[in-house]
């Protein structure tokens, strides 16, 4: 294999990468169900399950919270296996050496993620759960990027000469907004792993005020009135402030994504793929805010709260992939062509097939 050549499009590798990304997305959802059902500690041991090899744990014992936690572990194992296969495939079958390395990073991340999840159970550390939730988002971005980078569309994009460059200012705006979403998801993960349910129940006000009273007297009053069927834990001032920042973060992100969508349309034209992607991103954010509000109104119903997690992950990955595409498209064409000519890349079969000259 000529390492100077861009890889030939391999539909099966691409489909496999898509399958890995979809399975990871489902795993994120199942992880959301685990925390929404407060089931994270329902299987006390790890890597075994109630003393059984986890793959041999009898189905009859998959009851209550065990169902969510155990199926989460099984699906995580499947994602781990898919990731290893994908990495080996990329290493051996993709001419782009850096793709093999990305595959290796994905394997390391999925291993770290599994160990984090296991240690969170073994060490009873909620803080590890926050990291577990955060690494999950990073891993999801990576496998989605691998699916994108193995696509015919991406390879054609690499070979095309006539793409519209994305201005640096617009790219920076998207990078910052995507990073804001990442921070927001970390805040959300921290909230979920406090196991205190909803620290604030009303919206748009908070305990009847724009900024709630968090004095010791007020906290004692809130907790004395609070009756929860699950997550019956006293709410702390920290948790209330955390939710307030999550609300403010949602507002800031909504404004930023609105600006992104508007600027993408203005600077790239409304027919441009990235402008359309930005519009879809805007739609996702509206849906996500709606789900956040409904999470409050439904007293954190597990299905709604889990959808909130999943759409949050989709919002993040949409922003991240937009940035990846934008930076790829913004490579200076003459320089690229020169480099490619010097490297002999333009004589490669894949480039010729995709219109390279």
């Amino acid at each position: 294999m000529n390492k100077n050549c861009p890889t030939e499009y391999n539909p099966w590798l691409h489909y496999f990468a898509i399958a890995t990304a979809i399975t990871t997305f489902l795993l994120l959802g199942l992880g959301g169900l685990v925390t929404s059902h407060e089931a994270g500690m329902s299987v006390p041991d790890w890597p075994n399950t109630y003393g059984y090899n986890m793959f041999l744990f009898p189905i009859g014992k998959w009851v209550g919270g065990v169902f969510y936690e155990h199926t989460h572990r099984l699906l995580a194992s499947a994602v781990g296996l898919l990731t290893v296969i994908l990495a080996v495939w990329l290493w051996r079958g993709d001419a782009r050496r850096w793709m093999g390395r990305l595959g290796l990073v994905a394997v390391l991340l999925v291993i770290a993620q599994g160990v984090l999840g296991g240690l969170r159970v073994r060490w009873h550390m909620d803080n590890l759960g926050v990291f577990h939730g955060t690494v999950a988002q990073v891993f999801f971005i990576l496998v989605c990027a691998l699916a994108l980078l193995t696509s015919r569309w991406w390879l054609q994009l690499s070979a095309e000469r006539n793409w519209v460059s994305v201005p640096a200012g617009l790219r920076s705006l998207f990078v910052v907004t995507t990073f804001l979403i990442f921070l927001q998801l970390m805040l959300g993960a921290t909230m979920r792993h406090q196991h205190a349910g909803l620290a604030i129940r009303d919206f748009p006000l908070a305990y009847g005020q724009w900024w709630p009273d968090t004095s010791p007297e007020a906290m004692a009053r809130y907790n004395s009135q609070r009756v929860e069927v699950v997550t019956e834990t006293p709410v702390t001032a920290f948790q209330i402030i955390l939710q307030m920042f999550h609300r403010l973060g949602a507002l800031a992100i909504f404004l930023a994504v609105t600006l992104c969508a508007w600027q993408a349309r203005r600077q790239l034209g409304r027919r441009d793929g990235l402008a359309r992607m930005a519009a879809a991103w805007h739609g996702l954010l509206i849906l996500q805010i709606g789900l956040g509000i409904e999470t409050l109104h439904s007293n954190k119903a597990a299905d709604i709260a889990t959808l909130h997690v999943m759409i949050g992950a989709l919002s993040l990955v949409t922003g991240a992939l937009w940035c990846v595409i934008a930076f790829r498209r913004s490579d200076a064409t003459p320089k690229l062509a020169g480099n490619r000519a010097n490297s002999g890349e333009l004589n490669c079969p894949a480039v010729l097939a995709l219109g390279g000259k």
Partner: protein
Amino acid sequence: MNKILSILAVGMVGACSAVSAADIVGTVTYKGAAPAEKTITPILDDPTCGASYNGKAPTTHFYAVGANGEFGDVIVSLKDTTGSTGASAAPAVMDQKACLYTPTILTVQTGQKLIVKNSDPVLHNVHLNPTVPENEKANEASINAAQMPNGADLNYSFVKPEKFLKFQCDVHPWMFAWVTIVDSPYYAQTGADGKFVIKNVPPGKYTIVANHRKAGEKTQDIEVKDANVSVAFTFEPK
């Protein structure tokens, strides 16, 4: 002569002990409307747990308030007293029955054995959340322990006082119990009638503390002499 002196001495000690301890008796009342309890609807979603309830889910019991304000599940103790007799006290027992903890509020002394049973035909995990590190370390091996249907009892013991240490089952996330650990034998927990008795308290000045998990804490300064002391606490909505 020595024998007579010995008998006299024993008699005097006995007499002294008879007059040197008194009971603290009291009532705890909740004045006003307590927050409404909630129905534990998820319990019906679990076929095994739901079978115990014939379609009618139980409710939470965070405020055990009687018709005349009798306030149950309040823990009354004497502040800063020590001398736990937990090591020789009968073990306290908490059961998991029909997918609920029984009782949900319990008080034990440091060093006292706490037995957790599972009378259900379904597995539970007994998950403790101590906030005092010494109590966590003392129960490290069983801090989150599986308990199969009718499985072996789990045993716990605590070394430091702690208020409302939460026990939970993550398999059935509505299952909670709160265990308070005190460091002396001078404590009581109000029953459904809101009454309590702390027995054999030596004479002296004390601060008596009434603690409710949701309603908070009330204190009074009292003096115990040679007669029983009556105390009344009243909680109100905050």
